[in-house]
């Protein structure tokens, strides 16, 4: 029944994107592992990781789109959920290093030995088990979002105010994680990872597998969000976005509806962060920078807010552009990014995908109208011919 529900709710473009993602999940690792390094179609390992990083960004943008595009909550703190998921994964990876750190301590990560800590803090317990870390990747951001959203939505903190307090949240976390006493590696964060699930994290095979995992997760989350958005709940979500007071007066518990979307979105952001860390090889407090969260917003805006494919396209486009520009003209990148912000808000309020689909829809309608016109003409013409 669930499958039929899912199938029903997917429209063609989503199916296409999911198919592309699944195809990439097979093709890129295959091209990386099975072709010779000098083969024209060979994908070098660094590119596999780079593309994998884009996909995790795309997942983050998708998560933001669920709350911003469909519920009207502009969260300026989504990078915080991303980073929290990343830290949970980072802690697992740190525990996997074991006695191979520079200080050779079998239990404590290097930075704790360096700070003269004698035993593992309580919140590091259990992170040596993957299932526990994976659970925390979802639970920690989810719980933070739940508590934060519970208070914020219940007291009807809206619009700009909500945006600003989410920014304050990520800023507070940034400051907190910079502290050495917090027990998360302070300034340097967590790095020098060795293994994931027993596989060498630097190995080509692991990288390819991580890429495939990112693509699959993104596809899964895309299907999930589509299901959410197309469901009855999704309709109410959009209603909250467009006319919050009216929805409340119709008898819906607006705060519960928002809270659900916000929490799910934070969990997705956490998963994105957890996939990001092993591919990039480091997580540090810089990920909490308020600027990062705002950048996520621009990916979503460029791709098209309120469309589910848009954020994926936007994240890949902007980050691809960033990789190319920062290498070719490092001075120019911030100008380009800044200009992009202004251009998109002024001229592309629906984003690339939104504008394109609107254009297609218009052309379709136009063609249909033209067809109808033709048909009527024919109808009119035939009797004339018959005469």
């Amino acid at each position: 029944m669930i499958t039929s529900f899912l199938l029903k709710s997917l429209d063609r473009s989503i199916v296409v994107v999911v198919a592309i993602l699944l195809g990439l999940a097979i093709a890129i690792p295959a091209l990386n592992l099975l072709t010779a390094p000098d083969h024209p179609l060979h994908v070098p390992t660094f590119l596999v990781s780079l593309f994998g990083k884009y996909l995790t960004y795309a997942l983050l943008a998708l998560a933001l789109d669920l709350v911003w595009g469909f519920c009207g909550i502009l969260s300026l703190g989504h990078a915080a959920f991303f980073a929290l998921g990343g830290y949970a994964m980072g802690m697992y990876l740190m525990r996997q290093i074991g006695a191979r750190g520079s200080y050779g301590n079998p239990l404590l990560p290097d930075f704790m030995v360096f700070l003269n800590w004698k035993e593992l803090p309580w919140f590091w317990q259990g992170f040596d088990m993957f299932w526990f870390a994976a659970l925390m990747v979802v639970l920690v951001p989810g719980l933070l979002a739940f508590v934060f959203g519970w208070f914020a939505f219940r007291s009807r903190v809206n619009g700009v105010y909500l945006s600003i307090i989410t920014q304050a949240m990520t800023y507070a976390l940034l400051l907190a994680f910079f502290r050495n006493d917090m027990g998360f590696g302070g300034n340097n964060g967590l790095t020098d990872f060795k293994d994931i699930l027993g596989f060498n994290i630097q190995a080509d095979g692991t990288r390819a597998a991580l890429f495939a995992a990112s693509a699959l997760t993104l596809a899964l989350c895309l299907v999930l969000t589509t299901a959410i958005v197309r469901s009855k709940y999704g309709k109410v979500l959009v209603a909250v976005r467009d006319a919050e007071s009216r929805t409340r007066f119709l008898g819906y518990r607006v705060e519960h509806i928002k809270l659900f979307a916000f929490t799910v979105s934070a969990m997705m952001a956490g998963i994105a962060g957890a996939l990001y860390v092993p591919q990039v090889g480091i997580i540090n407090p810089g990920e909490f920078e308020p600027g990062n969260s705002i950048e996520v917003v621009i990916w979503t805006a460029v791709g098209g807010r309120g469309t589910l494919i848009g954020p994926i396209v936007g994240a890949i486009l902007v980050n691809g552009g960033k990789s190319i520009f920062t290498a070719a003209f490092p001075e120019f990148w911030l100008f380009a990014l800044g200009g992009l912000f202004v251009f998109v808000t002024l001229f592309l309020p629906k984003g690339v995908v939104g504008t394109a689909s609107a254009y297609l829809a218009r052309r379709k309608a136009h063609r249909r109208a033209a067809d109808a016109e033709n048909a009527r003409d024919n109808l009119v013409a035939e009797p004339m011919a018959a005469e």
Partner: protein
Amino acid sequence: MYRILQTLLITLCLLVSAHVTGLRAADDLGALISALGTAKLAELDDRIAALAKSGDPRVIPVLEALGEGNLYARKADGGVFLTTEKGTNLVLVDPLDGADIGEVPKGELQKIKVNNAVRRAVRSALGGLTLFSADAEARLKAAQSMRQTPNAGALEAIETALAAEKDAAVRKTLDEARAVTLLVSDRPDDDKRAAIKALAEGGGREALGVLTSALSSADASLKPDIEAALQRIEQAQAFWNAGQNVWYGLSLGSVLLLAAIGLAITFGVMGIINMAHGEMVMLGAYTTFLVQDVIRGSYPALFDWSLAIALPLAFLVTGIVGLAIERSVIRFLYGRPLETLLATWGISLILQQSVRSIFGPTNREVGNPSWMAGAFELGGLTITWNRLWIIVFALAVFAALLFLLKRTSMGLRMRAVTQNRHMASSMGIRTPWVDALTFALGSGIAGMAGVALSQIDNVSPNLGQGYIIDSFMVVVFGGVGNLWGTLVGAFSLGILNKFLEPYAGAVLGKILVLVLIILFIQKKPRGLFALKGRAVEA
């Protein structure tokens, strides 16, 4: 004839005796110095004390050389010389007249050995000697070092110096040094009690430290006195600490107010989430840098006026930039606050990168004019002039802005447009121009804030980013659309921050403040002073 002979004889005698006494003095010092060469390690202390007692300035280089291990005795005749190393030879200098005696191989000389105890004795003897230096700065330093490490032997020297001292600051330090030294000496207990009392009255961290260390070694009879004095100082310190915290809080609050006040206009009054606000502050700071650069190059005499010149220029520059931003971007986005956030964030990136490309990514040097440098003491508070001026300036800007908004026709129009655009437009107000000018005003004020903040912060392309989040917090906390709210918000956040800092540390204090603001907004979603009425929902 006889008389002449007599006179001659007397003159001769006088001359000879004068010569002899001169020789005696030189001989004394010479003997004292030579005595260093023959002394055993245990005797050196006494010999150093004897040298220091002479009060002769020529002793200073000798003692310094001794402390550094550059004092040698000649094996042949026991003469003592200052030396400097030159290859395997030593260059000898006479300790009395500083005459260069020449190079001698090392083997002919014997180094006068010193240990740490001797070095300490040398240091305190030198401290005592510099107490009589002609330079007030040197005397102050000597007095401070004697206060830091009291040495009973130096008490007499301190008292002699105190009797001769004229400089008030040096006298005060000497007084404290004397009291401290008295405590470790073998003077009668009554004197010590008086000294404890004097120290308690003077207060200060040094007195606290000295009394605490004296407490452990003092006689049982003195202990209650010392404890009472300690308590007294601690109370006074707690009081002044609270005062200092309030002062720091006011200072931080004024900085927050300056940074936020322009935002109170663009965000609070106009509803634009102006993320480029921080960059306006930065542009103001760079204007100050440029003005000072020109002044340094061409009119150095005007340097003290540089800020006065920079203020209107910064207002103008950032005002024009603001005007351009409003006309080219923001006017298309009214009523869509979240979109203004994105667009202005983009603008802020562009402005940052422009400044980085033009001026380079590193900090630029902006100097303090002389009237802003330095500090003065007010009771137990240390108040720096630049902080004081910034508080005054912030309040002045606030007052001027309030006057502009509440008492001028331009302000009336601004308020009319922000409260009810359509009605204002129907009354014949040109709303687009009022919008543009309001935004320019907010930006201009941010630029003036930049002039002030350039005095206490690093002028770099990232200057503005540090202020943007705090500014938003202040405006939201105080209540959007209310200037008084911004004032109260800025100062209460500033003081709260500084009172949390001693207990929680600077970073944790800041985190706590952020968490408190987040919780506060749950309670009062519209800030401290919320606007009432229909305008709220619009």
